[in-house]
């Protein structure tokens, strides 16, 4: 496993792009060089001396600017670690470990459909960037317009962007899965075989996306989360239930998995 780095990265910028949601840009040359879409980094949220909070936090690589040697992280404040992270200043330095895990497996012969709900859009922009120029669809979902994330950036990738908000304040009213259902439903079986779904978001959404993909016989890859300590396969802490195979480990077997490996009833 080459190309994983334990480095200090300078904060290039940080800004609030939606309520409690921040876009963090780091100068991390090695990570920017080696990362592939779907991979993640472990970031130490504290800068001060001391061991509390103890663990690094995992975040998807939201985007890479190869020339500037920058990586972007899109994160939401949900607890102690992310609250600390939201307070870092430009110029300060963070300990970052990455790039980690298995990313999305892109199939050039296929037409990608990206499905992201809420913060699940985080790893998809990097993927969309890499798919740029080809055909493809992105379905973005959020509760309401104010929580729609990075719509402009996704639009600039040139892929078709469909939007769903649960309250109908922007785009289609409803869930991303309804949009996905209509989209796949419209296609012939033949065309469907050309499709590959890449998805990230809350478990209920992923379960539905995996279910739709299965019933339409479409390949589907999902990016999953688990509480992590090390992020590199040392502790076995990030187990999720797979089908017959017992447990998979999100940090090294994933975070991106073929949807059909996962035990969707027990996860």
């Amino acid at each position, binding site marked *: 496993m080459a190309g994983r780095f334990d480095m200090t990265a300078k904060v290039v910028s940080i800004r609030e792009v939606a309520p409690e949601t921040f876009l963090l840009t780091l100068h991390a040359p090695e990570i920017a060089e080696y990362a592939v879409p779907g991979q993640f980094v472990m970031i130490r949220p504290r800068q001060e001396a001391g061991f509390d909070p*103890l*663990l690094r936090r995992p975040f998807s690589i939201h985007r890479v600017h190869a020339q500037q040697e920058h990586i972007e992280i899109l994160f939401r404040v949900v607890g102690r670690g992310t609250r600390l992270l939201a307070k870092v200043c430009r110029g300060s330095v963070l300990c970052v470990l990455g790039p980690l895990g298995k990313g999305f497996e892109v199939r050039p012969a296929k037409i990608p459909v990206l499905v992201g709900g809420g913060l699940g859009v985080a790893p998809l922009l990097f993927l969309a960037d890499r798919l740029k120029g080809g055909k493809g669809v992105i379905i973005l979902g959020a509760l309401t317009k104010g929580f729609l994330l990075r719509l402009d950036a996704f639009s600039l990738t040139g892929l078709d962007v469909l939007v769903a908000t649960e309250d109908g304040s922007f785009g289609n009213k409803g869930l991303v899965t309804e949009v996905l259902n209509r989209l796949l439903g419209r296609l012939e079986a033949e065309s469907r075989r050309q499709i590959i779904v890449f998805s990230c978001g809350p478990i209920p959404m992923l379960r539905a996306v995996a279910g739709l993909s299965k019933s339409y016989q479409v390949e589907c890859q999902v990016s999953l989360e688990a509480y992590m300590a*090390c992020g*590199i396969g040392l*502790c076995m*802490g990030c187990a999720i239930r797979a089908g017959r195979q017992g447990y998979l480990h999100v940090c090294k077997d994933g975070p991106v998995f073929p949807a059909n490996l996962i035990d969707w009833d027990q996860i």
Partner: protein
Amino acid sequence: MDGQVKGLRGRVDLRVSIGSLDLKNPVLLASGTCGYGAEIEDFVNLEDLGAIVVKGISLEPRQGNPPPRLAETPCGLLNAIGLENVGVEAFIKEKLPWLRERGITTIVNILGNSADEYEELARRLAGNKGIHGLEINISCPNVKKGGVAFGTDPQQAAEVTKRVVAATDLPVIVKLSPNVADICAIAVAVQEAGATAVSLINTLLGMAIDIEQRRPVLGNIFGGLSGPAIKPVALRMVWQVVRCVDIPVIGIGGITTHVDALEFLMAGACAIQIGTANLIDPTAPVKVVQGVIDFMQENNYFSLQALKISS
């Protein structure tokens, strides 16, 4: 930090022997926090360390406990991995060759449900090149059957030790549980049963509750507490055990920096293991070795023995 220890610059002698086991230096990686070596090699030059203690191995593969398996606590980590491991056969076939080829000093942490199983594990591992010692885990709090019981009862601990010692030519380290009233009683019992050394501590039994969900955080309810939070307890137990047995004592528990390591060495530990620190900073072990060397040179300690507080 490039994962390499700078040369010993002459004077400081860090070598240590535990029975027939000769170590380059006293810094080891603790079981369960360094995988089987390959997982951490991008960050640490394993040959620069004293040894690696691989994840606890049982006779059969184990799937481990249902998630969530981890919870962060103040300066600590709760884990309930439940000894997920590949089993002894897969270990020998798939993991050991990698370690052997690199010449890494390897100690195998073993775990059974009965004295018979421990003995059988020692027997199966015997004769495999590349294994330099066994560490008997009689103290893991994360399995329901066995494990803990051995660790809290001097007689059972002695029985397991005797059986393993008889079944192997390797040095046998017995890893003690801190969840006892009198750790010396256990230490003395396993010394008399023939243990080459003792290592301590394993994790303290703890738990956490998610107040939003109103339920225990861990799938297993209870888990083992490790990390900086437990260092004072570990250090006290090491101090006590050093003063009640004659065999070498390996210190474990919350060691994160070279200062921590030196506290244990001064308490009288012959070597130390780094656990949770690997998880939060995989280059920590190398920094600890370097820090110990620098401290000893600056303060004119030329051997590990010189560090020990005699009282």
